[in-house]
C-alpha cells in the first residue's frame, strides 16, 4: 500500500511539471498585456508600460521566465501579482476562507439532499416519489447557475427583500448577530450552487443504488429475513457508496477552485472571482498560481480517491 502511494506520488512529479509547463506557455502566448489599461490613459507615457514590462521580467524569453518561475515556486515564492503588486500567496489565502465556506457548504447541502433522495428513490424505482425526484433533478441540472442566481436575486432580494445579494466579508457586529448575518448572506449562493450539484448527484446515487440493489447477495439478505431498513443501509448503501465517494473526492478540488459564475453574480470574494478578474486583467502570476494549485489538488485527490477505493472495497488491490 505505502509502496503504491509512493509510486503514485513519484509519477505525479513529472505530470505536474508537464502541467505547469503547458500552463505557463499557454499563458505566455495568450494575447493581452497586464499593463494594457495604461495604454489607453493619455496621462501615462508609453515608456512607463515598457519600464514595468522590463522590471517584471516580461520581456525575457519564455523558457527563462519559466525557469525563474519554477525556481521561485520550489523555494515557496509564488510570485507577486502585477495588478495589485501583492504576493500571490497572500492574495489567495485572503480569499480561501470565503471560498471554502461558501462552496464547502454548497457541497454539504448537495450531499444532504442527494444521498437520502437518491437512496429512497432507488428503493422504490418508478414510484411517484422517484418520478418527481427525477424530474426535479433534470430541471435542476438543466438550469445554469447564472440563471438560477439571477432568478433568486429577483425573487428574494428585489421582490421580497429578504436577503442581501451583495456578499460582504466585513459584517459589523459580533456573536450571534455576526453569525446570523454570515449565514443569511450565504443562503442564496449556497442554495444556487448546492441545488445544482444535488441534482446531478441525486441521479448518480440513485443509479449506483439500483446497480447494487439487484445483486444476489441483497436477495439473500432479504431471504434471511433482515429488515428492509437494515438491508438498505448496511448491505446496499455501503457498496453503492463506493463510486459516490470517488465522485465526492474528485469534487473537492472544485471546492478550492471556487465557482466562477456564482461568485461573480453574488460578488463573493473567492478564488473563482480572483481567477476570472486576473484572467481579464492578464495578471499571469495569479492565473498561473491558481490554476497550478488547482492542478496539484486534482492530482492529489485522484490519489486519495484511489486509496479510498481500496479501503472501501478490499477486492480491489492496489499494486
Amino acid at each position, binding site marked *: 500500500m505505502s509502496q503504491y502511494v509512493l509510486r503514485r506520488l513519484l509519477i505525479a512529479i513529472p505530470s505536474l511539471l508537464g502541467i505547469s509547463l503547458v500552463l505557463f506557455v499557454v499563458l505566455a502566448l495568450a494575447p493581452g498585456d497586464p499593463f*494594457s489599461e495604461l*495604454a489607453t490613459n*493619455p496621462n501615462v507615457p508609453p515608456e*512607463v508600460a515598457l519600464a514595468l514590462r522590463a522590471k517584471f521580467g516580461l520581456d525575457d524569453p519564455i523558457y527563462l521566465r519559466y525557469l525563474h518561475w519554477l525556481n521561485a515556486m520550489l523555494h515557496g515564492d509564488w510570485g507577486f*501579482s502585477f495588478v*495589485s503588486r501583492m504576493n500571490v500567496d497572500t492574495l489567495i489565502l485572503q480569499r480561501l476562507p470565503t471560498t471554502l465556506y461558501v462552496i464547502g457548504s454548497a457541497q454539504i447541502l448537495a450531499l444532504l439532499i442527494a444521498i437520502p433522495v437518491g437512496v429512497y428513490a432507488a428503493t422504490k424505482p418508478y414510484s411517484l416519489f422517484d418520478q418527481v425526484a427525477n424530474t426535479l433533478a433534470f430541471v435542476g441540472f438543466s438550469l445554469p447557475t447564472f440563471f438560477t442566481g439571477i432568478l433568486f436575486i429577483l425573487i428574494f432580494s428585489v421582490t421580497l427583500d429578504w436577503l*442581501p445579494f*451583495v456578499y460582504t466579508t466585513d459584517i459589523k457586529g459580533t456573536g450571534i448577530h455576526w453569525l446570523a448575518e454570515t449565514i443569511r448572506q450565504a443562503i442564496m449562493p449556497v442554495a444556487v450552487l448546492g441545488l445544482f450539484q444535488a441534482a446531478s448527484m441525486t441521479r448518480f446515487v440513485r443509479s449506483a443504488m439500483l446497480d447494487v440493489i439487484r445483486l444476489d447477495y441483497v436477495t439473500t439478505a432479504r431471504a434471511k429475513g433482515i429488515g428492509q431498513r437494515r438491508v438498505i443501509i448496511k448491505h446496499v448503501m455501503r457498496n453503492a457508496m463506493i463510486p459516490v465517494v470517488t465522485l465526492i473526492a474528485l469534487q473537492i478540488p472544485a471546492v478550492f477552485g471556487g465557482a466562477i459564475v456564482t461568485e461573480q453574480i453574488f460578488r463573493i470574494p473567492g478564488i473563482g*472571482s480572483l481567477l476570472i478578474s486576473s484572467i481579464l486583467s*492578464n495578471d499571469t502570476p495569479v492565473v498561473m498560481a491558481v490554476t497550478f494549485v488547482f492542478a496539484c489538488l486534482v492530482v492529489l485527490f485522484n490519489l486519495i480517491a484511489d486509496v479510498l477505493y481500496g479501503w472501501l472495497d478490499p477486492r480491489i488491490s492496489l499494486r
Partner: protein
Amino acid sequence: MLDKELRSMIGDVKDGRMDRRGFIQRLAAVGLTAPLANQILALGGVAMAEGVSTYKPTKRGGGGALKLLWWQGPTLLNPHFATGTKDQDGSRLFYEPLACWDPDGNMKLVLATEIPSTQNGLLAADGKSVTWKLKPGVKWHDGKPFTADDVVFTWEYIIDPATAAVTVATYRDITVEKVDDLTVRLGFKKPTPFWADAFVGATGQILPKHLFAEFKGSKSREAPANLAPVGTGPYKFVEFKPGDLIRGVINPEYHMPNRPHFDTIEMKGGGDAVSAARAVIQTGEYDFGWNIQVEDDVLLRLEKGGKGKTIYAVGGDTEFIALNFTDPTTEVDGERSSIKTKHPLFSDPAVRKALSLLVDRESIKKAIYGRAGRTTANFLNGPEKFVSKNTTWEFSVEKASKILDDAGWKPGADGIREKDGKRLKIVYQTSINGPRQKTQAIVKQACQKAGIDVELKSVVASVFFSSDVANPDTYAKFYADIEMFQIPMSQPDPAQHMRRYHSSNVAAKENKWQGTNFPRWINKDYDATIDAADGEMDPVKRVALYIKANDLLFQDTVFIPAQHRLKVEASANTLRPVISGWANETDNLFDWYREE
C-alpha cells in the same frame, strides 16, 4: 476681436463692475466656460474662483456608514501605480492632493490655503513657476506633520524612472523646490498655461515621505504602505483586500471643519454594472454605485419606485470613429498601415465626408446612450470654452450617396459602389462592449443603404487596448479601415488630448506602435497649431488655437464623433454626492453627506 472684448471684461471683473458669475456666463455665450474661464481670469490678473461648497452638516461624523460599490474593485492603493481610475478612486479615500476640481470645473483647495494667481503673486507672470502655500497643522494619519518635504519627496519619488510611476508624465518636466516648511514652488521649463496639473486631482495625491523614503526607485514594490496607506484624508485606512474591499473609519483630526460626515466608509468591488445599479437604485443595499454604464431603458425601469437614482456628470469623453489614413491591407517593411502607404479609399476626401454623413448620432443617442450621451460634431468636447461652435453634423443617406456619385463612386451589380476597380468595402473594428456593437450595427445599416459594404469586427478589450507588439488586433496597430473607442480626458485641459495627433507621434513599427497618432494623419497646419498652443500663455489665443485644431480634425474627417459621453453614477436618494466630470468620483468625497 474676442481677445479685446475679453480683456475689457477681465478688467471689469477686476474693478468690480462685473461679477464673476456674470463673466462666466458671458464667456459661456461665446463658447468658453468653466475651468478654463476661471484660469483665464487667473491669468488675466483675477484669482481663480474657489469652488462653492454645498456641504451642510454642522458637525463632524454622525452620518453612519457610507457604502460604495465599485464594480471593478481597486486592486492597489498607491495612486502613482494606479492601472486604472478605480485604483486612483480607492487611493483618494486616504491620500489627498493640494487641490481638486469641483463639478463646475472650479478649483477646490484641499491641502493648500490659497489658489495661486498673479494677483497674490503665487503665479509668475511669465507662466514659468507657480507657488503653493500649504495648510498648517495638517497631520498624517499616524500623527506625523505634513510639510513641504512630503510634496517635494512625492515629486522625487515619481520622477525616478526605476519607480515606474504611471503619473510620471505630469512631473518629469517640472521642478519642485521647498521654499519653507509650508511653501513649495513648481518650476516649468517653458510657459505653462495649464499649471494646475501637478499635485491637483487624482494624479496629484501626495505620499508621506517618512513611509516611502526607503522605497523609492527599484524597491518601490516592497513598500508596506502600498497596501496600507497612511494619508491626510477624511478617512483612515482599516483594511484592504485587492479587488474586493476597502474599509476606512473617520479621521477625527481631519483638517476641514465639520468634515467628514460619515463614521465609516466601505468600498466593495466585483460583479457587473447592472447588478451594481440594482443594489443601489432598487434594493438600496449600497449608497453609491460607480460608473453605471447600463442601457438607459434598464436604468429608467430600476428607478421607478426605487430607493436611488442615476446622476450624471459632464466631462470631455468622446466616443469616436477614427479613420485610417494608411493602407491596412498592404505590408511595407513588415508592417501594415505603414505611414508610407495611402489608404486606397479614404485618400478620396469624398469617401470620408460621406462616411461622416452616415453616422446617425441621434439614433445612437436614442437607442444606446440615452441620458448619458450628447450628440456632437466635435472631437474636442470639453472644457466648454474649447468647444468649437464652427462645426455641424448631419445624418443623410441621400447626401452621402450624392457626394459619392459626384466623386465617381458608382454602384456595381451587387449595389456596392466602386471606382477604378476599387470597391467601397471597409472593415470597422472596436472592442467588445454592448453599446459599441450596437453602434456598429447602426452605422453598418446606414452605410449599406449608401452602397458601402461594412465588415464588423470586435476585439476583446484586453487585446484591443493592449500594447502587445505581437498582436495584430490592437487599436494602435489599426489593421482595419475604421475603428471606434474613446480616450478619456482626465483633466480640464485639452493640451494632452490634442497633442496625440501631432505628426511626430505616428504609431509605427519603429516605435513599437507606442506612437499616439493611430489614425496616422499628417497635417502641417495642425502640427503648427498644436506647437503654438503648447507655448501660448495668452489664454484667449490658446483657446482659439485648440478650437482651430479641432476644426482641422473636423475638416479632414479624421474622427467621426459618435457621442459625447457623460459619467453615469447611481446614488441613494438621500445621499448628496459631489461628482465632477473633470475628476475622479472620490475627488470631492470630503463634501459628501446624507440628507436627513
